[in-house]
């Protein structure tokens, strides 16, 4: 495989990981925290509902998970495609 092809495969794998991560990013904040909150109102969390928790704490914790997952996954992808920093 030429450098060019390998780089293209690397980039499309990266785009796939970014897309999935951003779907989760939007789902927990705009979704669970705001728009889908009424649907989650049945799930009680400490005196209120799950949507309130996502809006004030949950989304931040998920954001952390996304960034650390992305860093770990991309550093592995770099090595798989031989584009990591020596």
């Amino acid at each position, binding site marked *: 495989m030429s450098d060019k092809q390998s*780089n293209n495969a690397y980039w499309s794998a990266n785009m796939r990981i970014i897309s999935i991560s951003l779907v989760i990013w939007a789902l927990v904040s705009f979704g669970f925290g705001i728009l889908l909150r009424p649907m989650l109102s049945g799930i009680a*969390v400490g*005196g209120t509902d799950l949507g309130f928790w996502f809006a004030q704490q949950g*989304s931040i914790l998920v954001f*952390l998970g996304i*960034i650390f997952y992305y860093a770990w996954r991309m*550093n592995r992808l770099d090595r798989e495609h031989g584009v990591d920093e020596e």
Partner: protein
Amino acid sequence: MDQFTINLLFVGGSFALYIGIAIWARAGSTSEFYAAGRGVHPVTNGMATAADWMSAASFISMAGLIAFTGYDNSSFLMGWTGGYVLLALLLAPYLRKFGKFTVSEFIGDRFYSQTARIVAVVCLIVASTTYVIGQMTGVGVAFGRFLEVDNTTGLLIGACVVFAYAVFGGMKGVTYTQVAQYVVLITAYTIPAIFISMQLTGNPIPGLGLFGDHVASGEPLLVKLDQIVAELGFASYTENHLDKTNMVLFTLSLMIGTAGLPHVIMRFFTVPKVSDARWSAGWALVFIALLYITAPAVGAMARLNITEMMWPNGGIKGGAVAVEQIQNDPKYDWMDNWQKTGLLDWEDKNGDGKIQYYNDKNAEMQAMAAEKGWSGNELTKFNRDILVLANPEIANLPGWVIGLVAAGGLAAALSTAAGLLLAISSAVSHDLIKGAIKPTISEKGELMSARVAMAVAIIVATWLGLNPPGFAAQTVALAFGLAAASIFPALMMGIFSTRINNTGAVWGMLAGLTVTLLYIFLHKGWFFIPGTNSFTDADPLLGTIKSTSFGAIGAMVNFAVAYVVAGMSKETPQAIKDLVESVRIPRGAGAAQDH
């Protein structure tokens, strides 16, 4: 030891520490001045980014914003953290690979256009300057309350300290003082919160206490809070009262704006490798989250404490607090202290010797008031910004906690001010002087001009802090709007699309910028001059979209115009396509260090 001496010790001690670090971390080259020699460990950089990002607004204002509205202001929590996901996934690693010194330099090189670079520089300077005004006034307020000096003296002392470490240390000095400032500010924020959470819920972790049980009543804290605010006719704490379209757009605007603010982005130029930039964004959010997870707890608990203090005899049935008690009971000393600052006030309107605090705009409460002979809400002024600073006094915490909070508030304002000033000075010396006016300037000359630009920026910021334009509070929307509508889309398209050429990028930025400025000016007045607005945020031009939420739409306009114009004009040259290729691949980032 009296409170004044304690405050002086805490503030003086922290300032001595910052200056000590400044002497140790003196910058000797442009690389050290702009990017701390690219030798900053990702965790260290994460901590510095957290201090850089968390301003007087995060430390002083945010908990107050949440305390008095509850769920409705969750946008700040999600928006100011969610931007880091965009930064980590879409910008930081690639900009680090590019390996230059300023955000506008990337825009100029990638879009092979001096115009694009200048547009970016102008946005950067306007956004950073408006932002820095708020920090400088914050410094003045904190000094005024805790060290009993007047606003001007306080501001001048703060400016001298920033001068000492930013002018000599550049990015290197700023980075290591920001690390120290982070430690001071997070300790100052969490210690009172832990005390208060223990008092109210028995849980030492405030973030968990928020969803725990209120010890005194045995009910969940948020249920208790909802009851107590409902009793006084206020809107429920946990329910949603806002238009959801506007809430989504506002949150999105804060996220995109956060990711587009140059003083945050440039922090990622300081780490050694691309992989470090990815980790560093995560660490930054860890350190930010420590405060942001605590803030909603601080807000809810303070609201409960204050309300119970105003109705100390078991709620509305037991009667309001007596004026005599406010004056004599040491538990109420904080009210006297803050009344002096003019940010808190009360008035016994009906002359019954008691201070009734309730929502006098609520019809049911008006009926009850008529029956009981009340003449309106008597806690006439409660500035939301005093909540965090007054919190330790409200909860009756020891004197050293109050001193610590004073040092913490100053650390938050100073660290952000330094980061912003650095962004401004590097844009002036690197993009304007070296990039446009005198490209042949020597490294020594550029370093000198960076220091002079920094000194001038500090003087301008101090002057603006002393004479804040009447619109100071509104300009934060402007800073976020500009960053969201101009800088973020340009950077993102520069990395993710080879199609966008020079013409597309310039037109995109100008279009995003113009519609956003127009929308803000139409609602807030032209150049924020009162009375010149055609619409208000209560009844906006487009549906329910307020001017503070428009940044996200400005960004979309930028993307759309850039694509259309790029499609109609000459294709991007091969050399630039190769540049984009190389930015996408981490290998070789080390080489860029020595550029």
